[in-house]
């Protein structure tokens, strides 16, 4: 694990334990995203989450070009406040949609953002979209058992993500290998 601080905020919140041990199926990678300022009322991770999600979308290639990118928020999300107004650097829009944690209505989703929900439910959702070209990002998966492609992890002064290479290879999507390099410290 690497630590890096940019615009570090002296925060006291302890990060969730990043449980690597005991997980044998997935290869995990991790990168740090410094926390920027947040709008009043938002989670203090909201800005960093928005930037990370946007970067992850940018480095992901779908089998056929999509525009706009449909980003579905499943279940109650804690840090997704700024995900509504995303615009990619190539000009494509990101359209936010809220879907039920049960999985109803995820048919048109390109990106599935898993909010706060039990691991079993997360696994049901990731299993449902596996191989169908949907980018999965888990907001709350400290045990790395959701089988989402990207899992957000939280540190006092930065946001990190882990990359589940197993999940990426089964997703039907292509993720720029340079992203793996950015996250290589987690391997």
């Amino acid at each position: 694990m690497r630590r890096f601080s940019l615009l570090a905020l002296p925060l006291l919140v302890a990060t969730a334990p990043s449980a690597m041990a005991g997980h044998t199926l997935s290869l995990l990678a991790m990168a740090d995203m410094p926390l920027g300022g947040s709008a009043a009322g938002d989670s203090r991770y909201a800005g960093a989450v928005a930037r990370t999600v946007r970067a992850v979308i940018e480095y992901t290639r779908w089998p056929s070009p999509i525009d706009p990118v449909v980003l579905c928020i499943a279940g109650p999300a804690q840090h997704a406040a700024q995900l509504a107004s995303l615009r990619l650097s190539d000009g494509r829009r990101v359209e936010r949609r809220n879907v039920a944690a049960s999985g109803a209505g995820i048919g048109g989703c390109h990106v599935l953002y898993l909010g706060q929900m039990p691991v079993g439910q997360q696994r049901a959702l990731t299993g449902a979209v596996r191989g169908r070209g949907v980018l999965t990002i888990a907001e709350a998966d400290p045990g790395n058992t959701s089988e989402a492609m990207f899992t957000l992890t939280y540190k006092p002064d930065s946001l990190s993500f882990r990359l589940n290479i197993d999940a990426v290879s089964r997703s039907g999507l292509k993720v720029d290998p340079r992203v793996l390099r950015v996250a290589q410290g987690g391997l």
Partner: protein
Amino acid sequence: MAEPRLPTLRDLLARAHLRLILFAVLLATASLVLSGGLVIRTYAQRNLELVARTTAYTVEPAVVFEDREAIREGVISVAAGRGVERVEVRDAKGRLLSEWTNPHSGALASLSRAANRFFWPEPVISQIRRGSEQLAEVRIHGNSEGLLRYGLAGLIIALSCLGLTVLATRILARRLQSDVIAPLEHVAEVAHAVRQDRAFEKRVPSSGIAEIDQLGRDFNALLAELQGWHAGLTSENAELVRRASHDQLTGLGNRALFDAHLAEALAISHSSGVTFALLYLDIDRFKVINDEHGHEAGDAALIAVAELLRGAIRGVDRAYRLGGDEFAILLGSFAQADQVDGVVERIRAAMAQPYRLPDGFAVTSVLSVGVAFSGEAGETAEALLRRADAAMYADKQGHKGLTD
């Protein structure tokens, strides 16, 4: 003051070779180093551009994710190495995200820094873009260590070549000496022999080099002419010497030769005690021939008498015409005085033969002969001559009694 030593041909050849080869080596080295340096500079520039683009590509996600550690690792993995002096990654606002500087080491470091400013005054820049968004830029400053190494290698090679050049020049000069200078030395040897020993018959051998052969041929022709001139002069000199000592009319030795030979004979006689005899002769009534038949007849008579005298004397005796109708004979070695009488008798007998004058008259001449023997100690040539003259006069008086 010692005379300044003149340079030899070998020195001149060696110097000319050295200059020529030095010039060639320096020219070749300079052009090679210069063109090679330009090519390397061009490739180094392309390499820098490539490194800049690769760095930009590699660190792009790290910039997007704002992961400085990943940027640093990306820069080191791609850009760090020879040919790169310094790498900077700055974001769109110009803030430094990451930098890497070549850790210099070795003696070339300070020289290298100076050369960097000369060869790479401007960094190579590559932009990191995401779509239309300008994210950051990579600035790469070139390193001139490779160029310096190339220049240094060129210098070392040039110096080595120069060393070889000096060696080769010496070997070449030695070969040229045997090929060119030896034939020239033959010419000089012949010239020296001709001057020193008058060896005009010597000739320069063929050398196998066109110019020197030409010189040798001309020299030989000159020698042949000299030889001719020398032979002519020698014979003319001999002729002049003969004329100075001989009577032109009769071809007998003249008065000067007689005086010299008489003095010589006297000196030998005095030192060794050997006696010699002097005969003094003149033609009786020569004046009558001259007056009655003319001077031509007189000359003819002199020639005829001289011829007869020459026939009458022995090989060891020598005859001279002293002037007018006066002749003298030096009798060489003889054992007894009657041998001298024998010679005198033969002369008188020879004179009995008639000879023909130019006007057709056949005449005979009578010679008056006076004999004097050497041997008196301290006697001079004049005294001996006077004795002979007196004896001849006595003989002539006797003849007058007979004819008149």
